[in-house]
Every structure is written in C-alpha cells, then in structure tokens.
C-alpha cells in the first residue's frame, strides 16, 4: 500500500476528504445562491436565462461543475464509509444516553441530515439541471441570440405549493447540516486557533442561516408574486 492510499484509508484521511469536499461544496453553494439571486430580478427571467446559459457553456465553469460533481460523490461515498466504520466501533449501544447534554443535535445527526439533502439534490437536479442539459426547453431570444428558457421551468415548478414547501423544508435541513459542517471542516483540517476559531464559528453560524434562507426565499418569492 502506498503512503497515499494508506493515508486516505486512515480515519484522518477519510475525514480530510469529507472536510475538503464539504468546504468545496460550501464554495459551490455560495456561487449558486449568488447567481440564483437573479430570480429576484423583475425582468421576466432574462438575466437568469443568460446566466444559466453562461453556467452551462463556459469552459471554466465546466471545470468547476465537474469538481462539484466529484465533491458531491466523494462526500457521499466517504460519509457512507465513515458511518459504517463509526457504527461498527460501537456494536452494542447504551440503554440510556444523555448525548444532548454534551453535544448539539445537528452534530450527532449529520448522516441523517445529509441523506435528506441528497434526496432533495436528486429531485432538484432532475427538476432543473437535467432539464437544462437534456430537456426540451422553450427558447427565448434576447438581442438576436437564442437562450433556453429555464426561467419558465423554474417559474412553473414553484406554482406548486408542495414543491415550494418541499424546498423550504429541505433548506431547513441544509441549515442544520451547515451549522455543524462549516466549523467542523476547519477543525478537521486542524485549523483551530484561539485567534481565528471564534471567527470561523461566527461565520459558520451566519452562513448556515443566510444561505438557506436566501435559497428558501426563491420558491416563496416566485409562488407569491406570480
């Protein structure tokens, strides 16, 4: 076994992959939420459609998107490997446990939260990402150039109240996942220092609320304005 595979098979190596992919996905979420803010622009979806075309055709974005797919897949696979390892480390559980007195709920349920987010992700990508790539979308023309009208699909999807509720609930789970994951990733990387750990924690708590709230606001905005 080479030193690389040996390291990646160690618990710390596995955690390193979870942290790095998790942080990359946090970067992705930041970009995703920033771009999708265009949905709030009252222009019939023009800016959003132009942005969507850019995001699916620009070569640099393509590289980032493949990194994102790889991060999602690695994050999921390693979480399964680690969960199984963790489960087998305690074959017999406690009859009575007061875990809530020593740790936060989200930190103990990252696997469950992640699973729900993964289910949401599959539905979400099927609804929009797959449509944008392979779906038969209506076409709109801005300044003589043709664009796929992804906005109309988004707009239609969020006329459905159940879709809206599903999205808002999924964002609540994302918030809990991030509330632990953000600071936890830095701790795993070894970035724990009295000078900047309080800042990392504070940014993490800010991020885990702001980003999911902005995401959740999008379906709500579309539902209530159209």
């Amino acid at each position, binding site marked *: 076994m*080479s*030193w690389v595979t*040996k*390291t990646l098979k*160690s*618990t*710390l*190596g*596995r*955690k*390193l992959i979870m942290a790095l992919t998790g942080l990359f996905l946090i970067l992705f979420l930041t970009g995703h939420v920033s771009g999708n803010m265009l949905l709030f622009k009252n222009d019939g979806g023009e800016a959003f459609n132009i942005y969507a075309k850019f995001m699916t055709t620009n070569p640099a974005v393509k590289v980032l998107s493949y990194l994102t797919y790889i991060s999602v897949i690695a994050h999921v696979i390693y979480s399964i490997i*680690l969960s199984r*390892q*963790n489960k*087998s*480390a*305690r*074959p*017999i*559980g*406690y*009859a*009575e*446990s*007061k*875990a809530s*007195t*020593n*740790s*936060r709920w989200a*930190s*103990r349920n*990252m696997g469950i939260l992640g699973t729900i987010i993964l289910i949401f992700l599959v539905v979400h990508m099927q609804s929009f990402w797959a449509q944008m790539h392979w779906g038969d979308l209506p076409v709109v023309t801005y300044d003589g150039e043709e664009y796929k009208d992804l906005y109309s699909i988004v707009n239609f999807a969020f006329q459905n109240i159940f879709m809206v509720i599903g999205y808002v609930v999924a964002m609540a789970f994302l918030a809990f996942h991030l509330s*632990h994951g953000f*600071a*936890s990733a830095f*701790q*795993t*990387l*070894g*970035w*724990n220092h009295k000078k900047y750990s309080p800042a990392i924690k504070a940014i993490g708590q800010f991020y885990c609320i702001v980003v999911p709230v902005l995401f959740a606001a999008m379906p709500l905005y579309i539902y209530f304005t159209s």
Partner: protein
Amino acid sequence: MKLTLKIWRQKNSSDKGGFATYPVDHVSKDMSFLEMLDVLNEELTEKGEDPVHFDHDCREGICGMCSLYINGKPHGPLQTTTCQLHMRSFNDGETITIEPWRAKAFPVVKDLVVDREAFDRIIQAGGYVNVNTGGVPDANEIPVAKTIADLAMDAAQCIGCGACVAACKNASAMLFTSAKVSQLALLPQGQVERKTRAEKMVAQMDAEGFGACTNTGACEAECPKGISITNIARMNREYFSAVMSSDNV
C-alpha cells in the same frame, strides 16, 4: 437515601449479559459512588451472590482506572471521575442505570469492567520519547516556554480513563490519542520522533477499531480532566504534515 440500581451484569466476554435491578437502602449522600457500590457488593457477598465487578484504583481521581456509564453519561452527571462523584449528586428514590463503556475496542471483561488495553497499545505505538539514560539532567537544561509547557501539561493531564471513547457517538479515541500526540509534539524532547509518532499512533488507533471524529465535542464536555478538542486539531495537523513529509513511503 433509598435507590434502585439498574446494573449491567455479564459473566464474561462471551456472555450476552443483561441488566439486573438491585434496591439499596441507607445510602449516605456523603458516600462516593464507588463506596455506594462497595456497600451493595458487601450485601451481595453476604447473600452468597456474585458481587458487581467494576474497575477502580486510586479513588483520588488521578489514575484513570474507574469508569462506569452512569445515567447516560460517562462518570455520571458531573464532569469528574466516578470515584470523585458523590451520592449528593443523586436524588432519594432515584433509579440509577450503570453500564460499562461501550466500544468494540473496549470489550467487556465482566459486568462493568472493560479491557482498555487498546489505549496501552496506542501509547506503545509512539506515545513516548527515546532518551539516553545517564545522570539526572540539570533543571532548565532544555528551555521550554511557559505557554508551551502549560499547553503540554494540559494535554498531559489525560488519565486514559476512556470517557472520551464512551461519550463519543462513534466510540472514537481521537481525544485520547491527540492528547498524547500533542503533549509530546509541543515539547522539545518530543521532536525527534514527532512525525513517526503521529503516523504510528493514528495507525494503531485505527487498527484497534475506534471510530472517526465527527467533531461533536462530546468528549471534551465529558472529559474529567477537561482535555480540549484543540488537541484533536493539533493531531490532525501533526498527522497531515507527517504523511506529507516523513520518510515512510
């Protein structure tokens, strides 16, 4: 005080085990938890029954021998060792559930006694410094900054009781291992074997079947010696830099 004790009884490591309930009477609130168990064991012995086996040694909170998962928490409701826990922390008429540490790497030997030799093997893997023996070195021969010495002493406070493993939802031994890795990585005497130590101790920790760290902080919250999870971050740094730069290919 009148209490009902719900205690895990298990004949040996291959026995399935189960809970047995014992009523105890005339418990003084000034008794330590282990003294209360001593009283129970005296009664059981007088009745010709097998006494409840549990680990203990110094009863001063310094040796790390006592354990017990009491009412859902390692070492009971206070952040201290079980031997330093007193019955005044409980209410009259209460039912107290007592379980052994639960971890694959800590197999139950009998009743509440678990085998914690996995910790010894982690230490044997690298938790030491090799020095030439000889005359007693002069004090302050090797300068150590007070701040560094304090951090190393904080880490060195670990008594190896295993409460971190017991508290962790993953039965992870990161806090224990990181305390020793940190203590020696901080001090000048530990520099020679610094890289191999981190690699070997982490490898041994994994080989023992402990879980990974989810950074819940439960270990830190329950550690009777208040070992901080900043040590886990330090161990991660030590380990990652060791695998990137050590000579072990």
